């Protein structure tokens, strides 16, 4: 029997709530954080809505030495890590440094910081570029800064697989725990709502150009027309179950199963790999489809991707065979932060026996999904399946289970 990896702490920074409590309250009442972009003037861009994290003042949360050397995504990640550690009752200074690792997901790195330094480069000259640009933009920077700030010298790294990364990072955390590291800080936090980040996202061709916050991001709806990006995510404290038990930690749930697949090339005509990822993750968890109480969908809101996801879910669970939800309709898609936040949300659903709703969506009948809309659905949740897909063919599926 492999070592079991459990989650003992959550730290959330989401567009509809800063901090786990704020986020969870907002999510259960269906309050969205999607609105017109305020971080730059979006009027000349085709997409103008985003999910921005409200009320985060970095100076209130992180040391002064770190402000000039960090992008917003790193500032949010450092704060979320503090909250997650506190939630877990872990004082890093009291633990051996090599017993703690950090594995986060990233998708684009610190874009806003990099944008500022590139602007200095071409408008003022190379001598004006901050020395901290050397790492502040970098994919691995959140893991690095979390590691340095908390004195964590165990196995660490970063996983870059777009939106699938949040799950892939947690799986890598579980791997390190199985290899003997008692505690790994994991998850993902992203933020690239700046003009440079925006044009990069527009180039992907999947952004919604609607100006109506209530209709812009509606996955599984007949009017699905792409997604609204958001910023934020979640940091999770993952621990060896035996070590967590020894210190009397409160446990949210176990990372019980995981699998990742990669889509075949479009020219092959073969099916995408999401269905296979679901089957493999269930097998890894030793679970039957009937054991799963809720599915947190990837919810791309691109019609053919919604269809592929609905088909993959229905192939395993049967038509309308399992409740499906997409609370990310209230945050926008958070890239590397999305699946980490979904896993945190799934663990809160397990804790409170309630499935948070999908907001604003009128489910298209032909998807044949039991989509939880409008109101949260109260029922005992023992096991939840979280799905995530990354641009370019990444599929990941992760099962969390009550212990």
């Amino acid at each position: 029997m492999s070592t079991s990896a459990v989650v003992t702490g959550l730290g959330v920074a989401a567009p509809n709530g800063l901090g786990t409590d704020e986020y969870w309250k907002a999510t259960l009442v269906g309050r969205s954080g999607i609105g017109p972009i305020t971080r730059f003037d979006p009027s000349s861009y085709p997409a103008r809505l985003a999910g921005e994290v409200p009320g985060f003042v970095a100076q209130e949360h992180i040391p002064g030495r770190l402000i000039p050397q960090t992008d917003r995504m790193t500032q949010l990640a450092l704060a979320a890590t503090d909250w997650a550690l506190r939630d877990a009752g872990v004082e890093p200074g009291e633990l051996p440094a090599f017993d703690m690792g950090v594995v986060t997901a990233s998708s684009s790195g610190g874009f806003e910081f990099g944008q500022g330094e590139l602007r200095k480069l071409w408008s003022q000259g190379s001598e004006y570029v901050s020395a901290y640009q050397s790492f502040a933009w970098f994919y691995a920077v959140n893991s690095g800064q979390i590691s340095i700030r908390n004195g964590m010298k165990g196995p660490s790294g970063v996983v870059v697989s777009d939106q699938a990364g949040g799950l892939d990072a947690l799986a890598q955390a579980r791997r390190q725990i199985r290899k003997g590291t008692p505690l790994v800080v994991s998850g993902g936090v992203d933020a690239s709502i700046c003009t440079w980040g925006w044009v990069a996202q527009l180039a992907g061709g999947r952004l919604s150009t609607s100006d109506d916050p209530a209709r812009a991001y509606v996955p599984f709806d007949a009017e699905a027309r792409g997604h609204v990006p958001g910023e934020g995510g979640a940091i999770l404290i993952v621990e060896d179950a035996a070590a967590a038990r020894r210190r009397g930690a409160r446990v949210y749930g176990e990372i019980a199963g995981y699998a990742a697949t990669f889509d075949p090339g479009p020219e092959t005509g073969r099916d995408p790999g999401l269905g296979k990822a679901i089957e493999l993750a269930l097998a890894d968890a030793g679970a039957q489809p009937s054991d799963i109480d809720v599915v947190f969908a990837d919810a791309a809101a691109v019609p053919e991707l919604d269809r592929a996801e609905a088909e993959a879910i229905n192939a395993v669970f049967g038509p309308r065979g399992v409740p499906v939800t997409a609370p990310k309709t209230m945050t926008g898609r958070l890239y590397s932060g999305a699946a980490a936040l979904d896993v945190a949300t799934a663990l809160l659903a397990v804790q409170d026996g309630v499935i948070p709703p999908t907001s604003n969506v009128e489910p298209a009948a032909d998807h044949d999904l039991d989509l939880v809309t409008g109101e949260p659905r109260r029922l005992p949740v023992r096991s939840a399946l979280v799905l995530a897909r990354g641009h370019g063919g990444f599929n990941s599926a992760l099962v969390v289970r009550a212990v």
Partner: protein
Amino acid sequence: MSPFTLVDLKRILLEGAGADDGVDLDGEILDMEFVDLGYESLALLETSSRIEREYHISLDESAMADVTTPRALIDLVNSHLAAAA
């Protein structure tokens, strides 16, 4: 040109690298090690680069590598300013 002082250095340190919450830059810091003030090599690189562009001097890299205290850095900058005058 007026000499480079601790006041100038503190301003540039704060702009480029911020300040450690546990350190009082207004205290007796002239002979403290930068490392004890919370500034590692990258913070000093950023600081020297800001000094260079503001004062239009070029700090010698090997001399900079030997600088470990505010007093030493201020002396180094002033020797360059004097040479440029």
